Protein backbone atom coordinates (compact mmCIF):
# COMPACT_ATOMS: atom_id res chain seq x y z
CA UNK A 1 0.00 0.00 0.00
CA UNK A 2 2.87 2.27 0.86
CA UNK A 3 4.43 1.60 -2.50
CA UNK A 4 1.24 2.67 -4.17
CA UNK A 5 1.12 5.96 -2.29
CA UNK A 6 4.77 6.60 -3.16
CA UNK A 7 3.93 5.84 -6.76
CA UNK A 8 1.19 8.45 -6.85
CA UNK A 9 3.64 10.90 -5.32
CA UNK A 10 6.12 10.05 -8.03
CA UNK A 11 3.54 10.83 -10.68
CA UNK A 12 2.79 14.27 -9.33
CA UNK A 13 5.79 15.44 -7.40
CA UNK A 14 9.37 15.91 -8.51
CA UNK A 15 12.00 14.35 -6.23
CA UNK A 16 15.60 13.19 -5.94
CA UNK A 17 16.68 9.94 -7.52
CA UNK A 18 17.39 6.85 -5.43
CA UNK A 19 21.09 7.43 -4.93
CA UNK A 20 20.73 11.18 -5.03
CA UNK A 21 21.77 13.67 -7.63
CA UNK A 22 19.29 13.42 -10.46
CA UNK A 23 15.78 14.84 -10.54
CA UNK A 24 12.92 12.46 -11.22
CA UNK A 25 9.15 12.41 -10.93
CA UNK A 26 6.46 15.05 -11.24
CA UNK A 27 7.18 17.49 -14.02
CA UNK A 28 10.31 15.55 -14.96
CA UNK A 29 7.96 12.89 -16.31
CA UNK A 30 6.54 15.21 -18.94
CA UNK A 31 9.39 14.87 -21.46
CA UNK A 32 9.12 11.10 -21.03
CA UNK A 33 5.38 11.21 -21.61
CA UNK A 34 5.83 13.43 -24.63
CA UNK A 35 8.46 11.16 -26.18
CA UNK A 36 6.26 8.16 -25.53
CA UNK A 37 3.34 9.78 -27.32
CA UNK A 38 5.59 11.02 -30.09
CA UNK A 39 7.02 7.62 -30.90
CA UNK A 40 3.59 5.97 -30.62
CA UNK A 41 1.98 8.56 -32.86
CA UNK A 42 4.69 8.40 -35.48
CA UNK A 43 4.61 4.61 -35.55
CA UNK A 44 0.81 4.46 -35.82
CA UNK A 45 0.65 7.04 -38.60
CA UNK A 46 3.29 5.17 -40.57
CA UNK A 47 1.59 1.83 -39.95
CA UNK A 48 -1.84 3.09 -41.03
CA UNK A 49 -0.37 4.76 -44.10
CA UNK A 50 1.06 1.44 -45.20
CA UNK A 51 -1.39 -1.14 -43.90
CA UNK A 52 -4.68 0.51 -44.77
CA UNK A 53 -4.24 0.92 -48.54
CA UNK A 54 -2.69 -2.52 -48.86
CA UNK A 55 -5.44 -4.17 -46.84
CA UNK A 56 -8.19 -2.34 -48.72
CA UNK A 57 -6.81 -3.21 -52.14
CA UNK A 58 -6.18 -6.84 -51.24
CA UNK A 59 -9.69 -7.09 -49.84
CA UNK A 60 -11.21 -5.45 -52.87
CA UNK A 61 -9.49 -7.69 -55.36
CA UNK A 62 -9.91 -10.74 -53.17
CA UNK A 63 -6.36 -11.84 -53.84
CA UNK A 64 -3.68 -12.53 -51.28
CA UNK A 65 -5.98 -14.02 -48.65
CA UNK A 66 -3.25 -16.24 -47.38
CA UNK A 67 -0.76 -13.40 -47.18
CA UNK A 68 -3.16 -11.03 -45.48
CA UNK A 69 -4.04 -13.52 -42.75
CA UNK A 70 -0.53 -14.95 -42.36
CA UNK A 71 1.01 -11.54 -41.90
CA UNK A 72 -0.88 -11.38 -38.65
CA UNK A 73 0.39 -14.72 -37.45
CA UNK A 74 3.96 -13.99 -38.42
CA UNK A 75 3.71 -10.51 -36.97
CA UNK A 76 2.72 -11.87 -33.61
CA UNK A 77 5.65 -14.24 -33.65
CA UNK A 78 8.37 -11.63 -33.98
CA UNK A 79 9.29 -10.34 -30.55
CA UNK A 80 9.31 -6.56 -30.30
CA UNK A 81 12.82 -6.58 -28.79
CA UNK A 82 14.10 -8.48 -31.79
CA UNK A 83 12.59 -5.98 -34.22
CA UNK A 84 14.07 -3.02 -32.39
CA UNK A 85 17.46 -4.74 -32.10
CA UNK A 86 17.30 -5.56 -35.81
CA UNK A 87 16.91 -1.94 -36.80
CA UNK A 88 19.59 -0.74 -34.39
CA UNK A 89 22.04 -3.38 -35.58
CA UNK A 90 21.44 -2.92 -39.29
CA UNK A 91 21.05 0.84 -39.35
CA UNK A 92 23.45 2.06 -36.67
CA UNK A 93 23.86 5.47 -38.22
CA UNK A 94 20.13 6.24 -38.20
CA UNK A 95 18.86 7.93 -35.07
CA UNK A 96 17.56 5.54 -32.45
CA UNK A 97 14.21 7.36 -32.49
CA UNK A 98 13.72 6.60 -36.17
CA UNK A 99 14.79 3.01 -35.69
CA UNK A 100 12.35 2.50 -32.84
CA UNK A 101 9.54 4.16 -34.81
CA UNK A 102 10.16 1.88 -37.78
CA UNK A 103 10.23 -1.19 -35.56
CA UNK A 104 7.01 -0.19 -33.79
CA UNK A 105 5.34 0.58 -37.11
CA UNK A 106 6.18 -2.91 -38.33
CA UNK A 107 4.67 -4.25 -35.15
CA UNK A 108 1.51 -2.22 -35.70
CA UNK A 109 0.91 -3.16 -39.35
CA UNK A 110 -0.41 -6.75 -39.06
CA UNK A 111 -3.65 -6.14 -37.11
CA UNK A 112 -4.57 -3.14 -39.27
CA UNK A 113 -3.81 -4.93 -42.51
CA UNK A 114 -5.65 -8.10 -41.61
CA UNK A 115 -8.67 -6.25 -40.28
CA UNK A 116 -8.86 -4.00 -43.32
CA UNK A 117 -8.73 -7.05 -45.54
CA UNK A 118 -11.40 -8.94 -43.59
CA UNK A 119 -13.50 -5.80 -43.28
CA UNK A 120 -13.62 -5.33 -47.02
CA UNK A 121 -14.27 -9.01 -47.69
CA UNK A 122 -17.28 -8.87 -45.40
CA UNK A 123 -18.94 -6.09 -47.37
CA UNK A 124 -21.92 -7.69 -49.02
CA UNK A 125 -21.54 -8.26 -52.73
CA UNK A 126 -24.97 -6.72 -53.22
CA UNK A 127 -23.59 -3.37 -52.23
CA UNK A 128 -20.54 -3.62 -54.46
CA UNK A 129 -22.62 -4.92 -57.36
CA UNK A 130 -24.98 -2.02 -57.02
CA UNK A 131 -22.08 0.37 -56.99
CA UNK A 132 -20.59 -1.28 -60.06
CA UNK A 133 -23.93 -1.01 -61.72
CA UNK A 134 -23.97 2.71 -61.02
CA UNK A 135 -20.76 2.99 -62.94
CA UNK A 136 -18.30 3.56 -60.08
CA UNK A 137 -14.64 2.85 -60.74
CA UNK A 138 -12.68 0.49 -58.49
CA UNK A 139 -11.18 3.35 -56.59
CA UNK A 140 -14.57 4.91 -56.07
CA UNK A 141 -16.02 1.63 -54.88
CA UNK A 142 -13.24 1.25 -52.33
CA UNK A 143 -13.57 4.80 -51.13
CA UNK A 144 -17.34 5.20 -51.09
CA UNK A 145 -18.65 1.72 -50.38
CA UNK A 146 -16.12 -0.70 -48.97
CA UNK A 147 -14.11 1.61 -46.75
CA UNK A 148 -17.08 3.08 -44.86
CA UNK A 149 -18.56 -0.36 -44.32
CA UNK A 150 -15.23 -1.77 -43.19
CA UNK A 151 -14.50 1.08 -40.82
CA UNK A 152 -15.63 -0.70 -37.66
CA UNK A 153 -13.21 -3.57 -38.21
CA UNK A 154 -10.48 -1.21 -39.34
CA UNK A 155 -10.79 0.80 -36.16
CA UNK A 156 -10.78 -2.44 -34.23
CA UNK A 157 -7.39 -3.20 -35.77
CA UNK A 158 -6.12 0.30 -35.10
CA UNK A 159 -7.24 -0.06 -31.51
CA UNK A 160 -5.37 -3.33 -31.05
CA UNK A 161 -2.25 -1.89 -32.63
CA UNK A 162 -2.29 1.32 -30.64
CA UNK A 163 -2.53 -0.48 -27.33
CA UNK A 164 0.27 -2.79 -28.43
CA UNK A 165 2.53 0.06 -29.45
CA UNK A 166 1.90 2.00 -26.25
CA UNK A 167 2.92 -1.06 -24.26
CA UNK A 168 5.91 -1.88 -26.44
CA UNK A 169 7.26 1.66 -26.42
CA UNK A 170 8.22 0.95 -22.82
CA UNK A 171 11.25 -1.05 -23.93
CA UNK A 172 12.60 1.79 -26.08
CA UNK A 173 14.84 3.13 -23.26
CA UNK A 174 16.92 -0.04 -23.57
CA UNK A 175 18.25 1.48 -26.79
CA UNK A 176 18.33 5.12 -25.74
CA UNK A 177 14.91 6.46 -26.69
CA UNK A 178 13.55 7.85 -23.44
CA UNK A 179 9.89 6.98 -23.06
CA UNK A 180 7.84 6.21 -19.97
CA UNK A 181 9.65 2.90 -19.92
CA UNK A 182 12.74 4.56 -18.45
CA UNK A 183 11.48 4.60 -14.84
CA UNK A 184 10.37 0.99 -15.24
CA UNK A 185 13.68 -0.26 -16.55
CA UNK A 186 16.11 1.91 -14.59
CA UNK A 187 14.86 0.84 -11.19
CA UNK A 188 18.02 1.86 -9.40
CA UNK A 189 17.55 5.45 -10.44
CA UNK A 190 13.79 5.73 -10.02
CA UNK A 191 13.05 3.22 -7.27
CA UNK A 192 9.91 1.10 -6.82
CA UNK A 193 7.79 4.21 -6.63
CA UNK A 194 9.02 5.27 -10.03
CA UNK A 195 8.50 1.84 -11.53
CA UNK A 196 4.96 1.56 -10.26
CA UNK A 197 4.14 5.17 -11.04
CA UNK A 198 5.31 4.95 -14.62
CA UNK A 199 3.47 1.65 -15.08
CA UNK A 200 0.27 3.31 -13.92
CA UNK A 201 0.72 6.14 -16.41
CA UNK A 202 1.34 3.72 -19.27
CA UNK A 203 -1.60 1.55 -18.30
CA UNK A 204 -3.76 4.67 -18.13
CA UNK A 205 -2.61 5.67 -21.60
CA UNK A 206 -3.44 2.22 -22.93
CA UNK A 207 -6.87 2.24 -21.33
CA UNK A 208 -7.55 5.74 -22.65
CA UNK A 209 -6.58 4.63 -26.15
CA UNK A 210 -8.75 1.53 -25.87
CA UNK A 211 -11.77 3.43 -24.60
CA UNK A 212 -11.34 6.33 -26.99
CA UNK A 213 -10.91 4.17 -30.04
CA UNK A 214 -13.78 1.91 -29.00
CA UNK A 215 -15.98 4.98 -28.95
CA UNK A 216 -14.77 5.97 -32.40
CA UNK A 217 -15.36 2.41 -33.56
CA UNK A 218 -18.93 2.54 -32.34
CA UNK A 219 -19.44 5.96 -33.88
CA UNK A 220 -18.36 4.85 -37.33
CA UNK A 221 -20.47 1.70 -37.34
CA UNK A 222 -23.46 2.46 -39.54
CA UNK A 223 -26.63 1.89 -37.56
CA UNK A 224 -27.85 -0.65 -40.01
CA UNK A 225 -24.80 -2.81 -39.49
CA UNK A 226 -25.04 -2.49 -35.73
CA UNK A 227 -28.59 -3.79 -35.64
CA UNK A 228 -27.94 -6.52 -38.12
CA UNK A 229 -25.09 -8.32 -36.47
CA UNK A 230 -24.40 -7.61 -32.83
CA UNK A 231 -22.02 -10.52 -32.41
CA UNK A 232 -19.75 -9.80 -35.34
CA UNK A 233 -16.18 -9.77 -34.27
CA UNK A 234 -12.81 -9.50 -35.97
CA UNK A 235 -10.94 -12.64 -36.85
CA UNK A 236 -7.95 -11.35 -35.02
CA UNK A 237 -8.21 -11.35 -31.31
CA UNK A 238 -6.01 -8.99 -29.32
Amino acid at each position, binding site marked *: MNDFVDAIQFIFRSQESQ*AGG*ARIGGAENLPLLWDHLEVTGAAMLLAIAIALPVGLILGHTGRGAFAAISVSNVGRAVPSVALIAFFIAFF*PRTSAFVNVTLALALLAIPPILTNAYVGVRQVSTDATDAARGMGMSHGQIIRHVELPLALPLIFGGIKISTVNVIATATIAPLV*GVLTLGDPIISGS*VYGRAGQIGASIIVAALAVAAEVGLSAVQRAVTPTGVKLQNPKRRAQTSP
Partner: protein
Amino acid sequence: MTLLLALLLGAFALAACGEDDESTGGESTEQPSSTDGGGSQIQRDEANAKIKLKIGSKNFTEQKVLGEIYAQGLRAAGYDISTDLNLGDEQTALKAVKGGDIDAYPEYTGTALLSFFGKKADELPKDPEAAYEEAKKGFEGEGLTAFPPTPFTSSNEVAVTQDTADKLGLENISDLEGQSEKLTLFGSPECRQRLDCLLGLQQVYGLKFKKFVPVDLEQRHDVLTSGRADVSIVFTTDPQIQREKEVLLEDDKGMFPPYNSTLVMKQETADDVGPNFEKTLDMIQNQLTDENMQELNARVDLDKKDAATVAKEYLTETGLISA
Protein backbone atom coordinates in the same frame (compact mmCIF):
# COMPACT_ATOMS: atom_id res chain seq x y z
CA MET B 1 64.10 -2.53 -34.73
CA THR B 2 65.82 -5.78 -33.78
CA LEU B 3 64.12 -5.60 -30.37
CA LEU B 4 60.71 -5.35 -32.01
CA LEU B 5 61.58 -8.24 -34.29
CA ALA B 6 62.71 -10.30 -31.34
CA LEU B 7 59.48 -9.46 -29.48
CA LEU B 8 57.41 -10.44 -32.50
CA LEU B 9 59.22 -13.72 -32.91
CA GLY B 10 58.93 -14.37 -29.21
CA ALA B 11 55.20 -13.62 -29.33
CA PHE B 12 54.64 -15.98 -32.24
CA ALA B 13 56.59 -18.69 -30.51
CA LEU B 14 54.51 -18.27 -27.37
CA ALA B 15 51.32 -18.25 -29.39
CA ALA B 16 52.37 -21.50 -31.00
CA CYS B 17 53.12 -22.97 -27.59
CA GLY B 18 49.76 -21.84 -26.25
CA GLU B 19 47.94 -23.61 -29.03
CA ASP B 20 49.92 -26.79 -28.68
CA ASP B 21 47.99 -29.56 -27.03
CA GLU B 22 51.02 -31.46 -25.91
CA SER B 23 52.39 -29.67 -22.94
CA THR B 24 55.62 -31.54 -22.60
CA GLY B 25 58.34 -30.52 -20.18
CA GLY B 26 60.46 -29.24 -23.09
CA GLU B 27 57.85 -26.72 -24.19
CA SER B 28 57.20 -25.42 -20.72
CA THR B 29 60.56 -23.70 -20.54
CA GLU B 30 59.25 -21.36 -23.28
CA GLN B 31 56.35 -20.29 -21.08
CA PRO B 32 57.46 -17.44 -18.84
CA SER B 33 54.74 -18.39 -16.40
CA SER B 34 57.36 -19.78 -14.06
CA THR B 35 59.32 -16.54 -14.14
CA ASP B 36 56.14 -14.52 -13.56
CA GLY B 37 55.50 -16.21 -10.26
CA GLY B 38 52.09 -17.45 -11.33
CA GLY B 39 51.42 -20.63 -13.19
CA SER B 40 50.99 -22.98 -10.28
CA GLN B 41 47.87 -25.05 -10.67
CA ILE B 42 44.77 -24.80 -8.52
CA GLN B 43 44.52 -27.95 -6.44
CA ARG B 44 41.17 -29.57 -5.88
CA ASP B 45 40.39 -29.95 -2.20
CA GLU B 46 37.54 -32.32 -1.33
CA ALA B 47 36.89 -30.40 1.87
CA ASN B 48 35.65 -27.50 -0.22
CA ALA B 49 32.81 -29.47 -1.75
CA LYS B 50 30.42 -28.64 1.07
CA ILE B 51 30.85 -24.90 0.58
CA LYS B 52 28.15 -23.62 -1.80
CA LEU B 53 28.48 -20.19 -3.27
CA LYS B 54 26.57 -18.24 -5.89
CA ILE B 55 28.69 -15.77 -7.80
CA GLY B 56 26.99 -12.77 -9.34
CA SER B 57 28.18 -9.95 -11.54
CA LYS B 58 27.13 -6.60 -12.94
CA ASN B 59 25.95 -6.09 -16.45
CA PHE B 60 28.97 -5.48 -18.68
CA THR B 61 31.62 -7.65 -20.37
CA GLU B 62 34.44 -7.29 -17.86
CA GLN B 63 32.11 -8.18 -15.02
CA LYS B 64 30.79 -11.24 -16.79
CA VAL B 65 34.32 -12.42 -17.54
CA LEU B 66 35.42 -11.81 -13.93
CA GLY B 67 32.38 -13.66 -12.64
CA GLU B 68 33.15 -16.63 -14.85
CA ILE B 69 36.84 -16.60 -13.91
CA TYR B 70 36.03 -16.68 -10.20
CA ALA B 71 33.35 -19.32 -10.69
CA GLN B 72 35.47 -21.66 -12.80
CA GLY B 73 38.61 -21.12 -10.72
CA LEU B 74 36.79 -21.84 -7.48
CA ARG B 75 35.10 -24.85 -9.02
CA ALA B 76 38.51 -26.21 -9.94
CA ALA B 77 39.40 -25.93 -6.27
CA GLY B 78 36.41 -28.09 -5.44
CA TYR B 79 33.90 -25.49 -4.27
CA ASP B 80 30.24 -25.90 -5.24
CA ILE B 81 29.69 -22.82 -7.37
CA SER B 82 26.62 -21.58 -9.21
CA THR B 83 26.33 -18.28 -11.05
CA ASP B 84 23.78 -15.55 -11.61
CA LEU B 85 25.67 -13.08 -13.75
CA ASN B 86 24.42 -9.94 -15.49
CA LEU B 87 22.32 -8.74 -12.56
CA GLY B 88 22.30 -5.04 -13.36
CA ASP B 89 24.10 -1.96 -12.07
CA GLU B 90 26.02 -1.52 -8.82
CA GLN B 91 22.96 -0.74 -6.70
CA THR B 92 21.20 -3.85 -7.94
CA ALA B 93 24.25 -6.02 -7.31
CA LEU B 94 24.77 -4.65 -3.81
CA LYS B 95 21.15 -5.32 -2.97
CA ALA B 96 21.50 -8.83 -4.32
CA VAL B 97 24.50 -9.67 -2.15
CA LYS B 98 23.04 -8.03 0.95
CA GLY B 99 19.74 -9.79 0.41
CA GLY B 100 21.36 -13.18 -0.04
CA ASP B 101 20.27 -13.65 -3.67
CA ILE B 102 23.97 -14.09 -4.45
CA ASP B 103 26.91 -14.77 -2.19
CA ALA B 104 29.57 -12.67 -3.86
CA TYR B 105 30.28 -10.38 -6.76
CA PRO B 106 33.24 -8.34 -7.99
CA GLU B 107 32.90 -4.64 -7.22
CA TYR B 108 35.32 -1.83 -7.94
CA THR B 109 36.91 0.10 -5.07
CA GLY B 110 36.23 3.45 -6.70
CA THR B 111 32.59 2.65 -7.43
CA ALA B 112 32.08 1.55 -3.84
CA LEU B 113 33.60 4.70 -2.43
CA LEU B 114 31.51 7.01 -4.56
CA SER B 115 28.23 5.16 -5.01
CA PHE B 116 27.90 3.31 -1.72
CA PHE B 117 29.80 5.25 0.86
CA GLY B 118 29.13 8.80 -0.31
CA LYS B 119 32.70 10.01 -0.58
CA LYS B 120 33.17 13.37 -2.24
CA ALA B 121 35.66 13.94 -5.05
CA ASP B 122 38.15 15.77 -2.82
CA GLU B 123 38.05 12.95 -0.26
CA LEU B 124 39.07 10.28 -2.72
CA PRO B 125 42.38 8.51 -2.09
CA LYS B 126 44.62 8.46 -5.14
CA ASP B 127 46.52 5.33 -4.17
CA PRO B 128 44.90 2.00 -5.15
CA GLU B 129 45.85 0.35 -1.85
CA ALA B 130 44.44 3.23 0.15
CA ALA B 131 41.27 3.13 -1.93
CA TYR B 132 40.92 -0.57 -1.19
CA GLU B 133 41.43 -0.08 2.54
CA GLU B 134 38.79 2.65 2.65
CA ALA B 135 36.36 0.63 0.59
CA LYS B 136 36.95 -2.38 2.84
CA LYS B 137 36.14 -0.27 5.89
CA GLY B 138 32.99 0.97 4.24
CA PHE B 139 31.88 -2.55 3.36
CA GLU B 140 32.53 -3.74 6.91
CA GLY B 141 30.02 -1.16 8.02
CA GLU B 142 27.46 -2.89 5.81
CA GLY B 143 28.23 -6.37 7.12
CA LEU B 144 30.19 -7.25 4.02
CA THR B 145 33.77 -8.23 3.54
CA ALA B 146 35.92 -7.16 0.59
CA PHE B 147 38.69 -9.56 -0.37
CA PRO B 148 42.10 -8.28 -1.51
CA PRO B 149 41.88 -6.55 -4.89
CA THR B 150 43.05 -7.46 -8.36
CA PRO B 151 46.19 -5.96 -9.87
CA PHE B 152 44.26 -4.35 -12.69
CA THR B 153 42.37 -1.13 -12.38
CA SER B 154 39.53 -0.25 -14.72
CA SER B 155 38.63 3.36 -14.39
CA ASN B 156 35.69 5.30 -15.77
CA GLU B 157 36.90 7.73 -18.39
CA VAL B 158 35.43 10.43 -20.58
CA ALA B 159 35.93 9.54 -24.25
CA VAL B 160 35.45 11.33 -27.56
CA THR B 161 36.35 10.43 -31.12
CA GLN B 162 39.63 11.65 -32.59
CA ASP B 163 37.67 13.99 -34.85
CA THR B 164 35.79 15.60 -31.99
CA ALA B 165 38.99 16.04 -30.00
CA ASP B 166 40.70 17.70 -32.95
CA LYS B 167 37.75 19.90 -33.84
CA LEU B 168 37.15 21.18 -30.33
CA GLY B 169 40.74 21.06 -29.11
CA LEU B 170 40.03 18.66 -26.26
CA GLU B 171 42.78 17.23 -24.09
CA ASN B 172 41.45 17.52 -20.57
CA ILE B 173 37.94 17.15 -19.27
CA SER B 174 37.95 20.82 -18.27
CA ASP B 175 38.48 21.71 -21.93
CA LEU B 176 34.79 20.84 -22.26
CA GLU B 177 33.88 23.94 -20.27
CA GLY B 178 31.87 26.28 -22.43
CA GLN B 179 31.60 23.65 -25.16
CA SER B 180 29.60 20.93 -23.44
CA GLU B 181 26.32 22.83 -23.87
CA LYS B 182 26.38 21.83 -27.53
CA LEU B 183 27.33 18.22 -26.93
CA THR B 184 25.34 15.06 -26.22
CA LEU B 185 26.58 12.70 -23.54
CA PHE B 186 25.67 9.02 -23.61
CA GLY B 187 26.04 6.90 -20.49
CA SER B 188 24.53 4.04 -18.51
CA PRO B 189 21.15 4.64 -16.86
CA GLU B 190 22.74 4.96 -13.42
CA CYS B 191 25.25 7.50 -14.77
CA ARG B 192 22.84 10.30 -13.89
CA GLN B 193 23.27 9.76 -10.18
CA ARG B 194 26.90 8.71 -10.00
CA LEU B 195 29.65 11.03 -8.84
CA ASP B 196 32.07 9.26 -11.17
CA CYS B 197 29.78 9.89 -14.09
CA LEU B 198 27.33 12.61 -15.14
CA LEU B 199 26.72 13.83 -11.60
CA GLY B 200 30.44 14.25 -11.01
CA LEU B 201 30.92 16.02 -14.33
CA GLN B 202 28.19 18.43 -13.28
CA GLN B 203 29.46 18.98 -9.75
CA VAL B 204 33.24 18.77 -10.04
CA TYR B 205 33.72 20.27 -13.50
CA GLY B 206 30.57 22.36 -13.65
CA LEU B 207 29.65 20.94 -17.04
CA LYS B 208 26.16 21.12 -18.50
CA PHE B 209 25.46 18.94 -21.51
CA LYS B 210 22.91 19.65 -24.19
CA LYS B 211 21.42 16.23 -23.63
CA PHE B 212 22.14 13.12 -21.60
CA VAL B 213 20.94 9.87 -23.14
CA PRO B 214 20.98 6.69 -21.05
CA VAL B 215 21.79 3.56 -23.05
CA ASP B 216 22.73 0.02 -22.27
CA LEU B 217 26.35 -0.05 -21.05
CA GLU B 218 27.45 -2.40 -23.80
CA GLN B 219 26.73 0.34 -26.33
CA ARG B 220 29.26 2.80 -24.87
CA HIS B 221 31.57 2.62 -27.88
CA ASP B 222 29.00 2.02 -30.61
CA VAL B 223 27.34 5.32 -29.80
CA LEU B 224 30.63 7.14 -30.40
CA THR B 225 31.54 5.38 -33.63
CA SER B 226 28.06 5.72 -35.09
CA GLY B 227 28.11 9.43 -34.42
CA ARG B 228 25.10 9.42 -32.15
CA ALA B 229 27.10 10.51 -29.13
CA ASP B 230 29.55 13.37 -28.91
CA VAL B 231 30.87 12.19 -25.56
CA SER B 232 30.68 8.81 -23.90
CA ILE B 233 31.79 7.26 -20.61
CA VAL B 234 34.06 4.27 -21.13
CA PHE B 235 36.38 2.04 -19.09
CA THR B 236 40.16 2.08 -19.36
CA THR B 237 40.31 -1.68 -19.98
CA ASP B 238 38.08 -1.42 -23.05
CA PRO B 239 39.83 -2.78 -26.15
CA GLN B 240 37.71 -0.56 -28.39
CA ILE B 241 39.60 2.55 -27.26
CA GLN B 242 42.70 1.48 -29.15
CA ARG B 243 40.82 -0.09 -32.01
CA GLU B 244 38.55 2.86 -32.75
CA LYS B 245 41.31 5.33 -31.83
CA GLU B 246 39.19 7.09 -29.25
CA VAL B 247 40.63 9.90 -27.17
CA LEU B 248 40.40 9.73 -23.37
CA LEU B 249 40.24 13.16 -21.78
CA GLU B 250 42.59 13.81 -18.84
CA ASP B 251 40.91 13.90 -15.44
CA ASP B 252 42.67 17.13 -14.42
CA LYS B 253 40.42 17.82 -11.45
CA GLY B 254 40.80 14.30 -10.07
CA MET B 255 37.20 13.18 -10.25
CA PHE B 256 37.95 9.51 -10.82
CA PRO B 257 39.28 7.32 -7.99
CA PRO B 258 41.27 4.10 -8.47
CA TYR B 259 39.10 1.17 -9.53
CA ASN B 260 40.57 -2.16 -8.61
CA SER B 261 38.19 -5.07 -8.53
CA THR B 262 37.51 -6.72 -5.20
CA LEU B 263 35.25 -9.67 -4.49
CA VAL B 264 32.53 -8.63 -2.06
CA MET B 265 30.82 -11.16 0.18
CA LYS B 266 28.61 -11.14 3.24
CA GLN B 267 30.66 -11.39 6.44
CA GLU B 268 28.81 -14.48 7.70
CA THR B 269 29.39 -16.29 4.41
CA ALA B 270 33.05 -15.30 4.41
CA ASP B 271 33.49 -16.71 7.89
CA ASP B 272 32.49 -20.14 6.61
CA VAL B 273 34.43 -20.40 3.38
CA GLY B 274 37.39 -22.17 4.87
CA PRO B 275 41.04 -21.21 5.27
CA ASN B 276 42.13 -21.78 1.67
CA PHE B 277 39.55 -19.57 0.01
CA GLU B 278 41.61 -16.42 0.12
CA LYS B 279 44.68 -18.24 -1.13
CA THR B 280 42.79 -19.70 -4.07
CA LEU B 281 41.28 -16.30 -4.80
CA ASP B 282 44.74 -14.80 -4.82
CA MET B 283 45.99 -17.44 -7.25
CA ILE B 284 43.05 -16.78 -9.53
CA GLN B 285 43.39 -13.04 -9.65
CA ASN B 286 47.07 -12.23 -9.36
CA GLN B 287 47.56 -12.54 -13.13
CA LEU B 288 44.71 -10.18 -13.91
CA THR B 289 46.91 -7.29 -14.95
CA ASP B 290 45.69 -4.31 -16.97
CA GLU B 291 46.94 -5.79 -20.23
CA ASN B 292 45.56 -9.23 -19.53
CA MET B 293 42.16 -7.86 -18.60
CA GLN B 294 42.08 -5.79 -21.75
CA GLU B 295 42.97 -8.85 -23.83
CA LEU B 296 40.21 -10.88 -22.19
CA ASN B 297 37.72 -8.08 -22.82
CA ALA B 298 38.88 -7.97 -26.44
CA ARG B 299 38.19 -11.66 -26.84
CA VAL B 300 34.59 -11.12 -25.80
CA ASP B 301 33.86 -7.72 -27.35
CA LEU B 302 35.90 -7.98 -30.54
CA ASP B 303 36.22 -11.72 -31.19
CA LYS B 304 32.67 -12.27 -29.92
CA LYS B 305 33.58 -15.27 -27.84
CA ASP B 306 31.42 -15.86 -24.85
CA ALA B 307 32.52 -14.97 -21.34
CA ALA B 308 32.63 -18.56 -20.08
CA THR B 309 34.95 -19.64 -22.92
CA VAL B 310 37.24 -16.67 -22.41
CA ALA B 311 37.39 -17.29 -18.66
CA LYS B 312 38.42 -20.86 -19.33
CA GLU B 313 41.09 -19.66 -21.75
CA TYR B 314 42.47 -17.34 -19.08
CA LEU B 315 42.62 -20.11 -16.52
CA THR B 316 44.28 -22.58 -18.89
CA GLU B 317 46.69 -20.11 -20.47
CA THR B 318 47.96 -19.06 -17.06
CA GLY B 319 48.29 -22.68 -16.04
CA LEU B 320 45.77 -22.35 -13.22
CA ILE B 321 43.78 -25.26 -14.54
CA SER B 322 44.95 -27.94 -16.91
CA ALA B 323 43.63 -27.65 -20.45
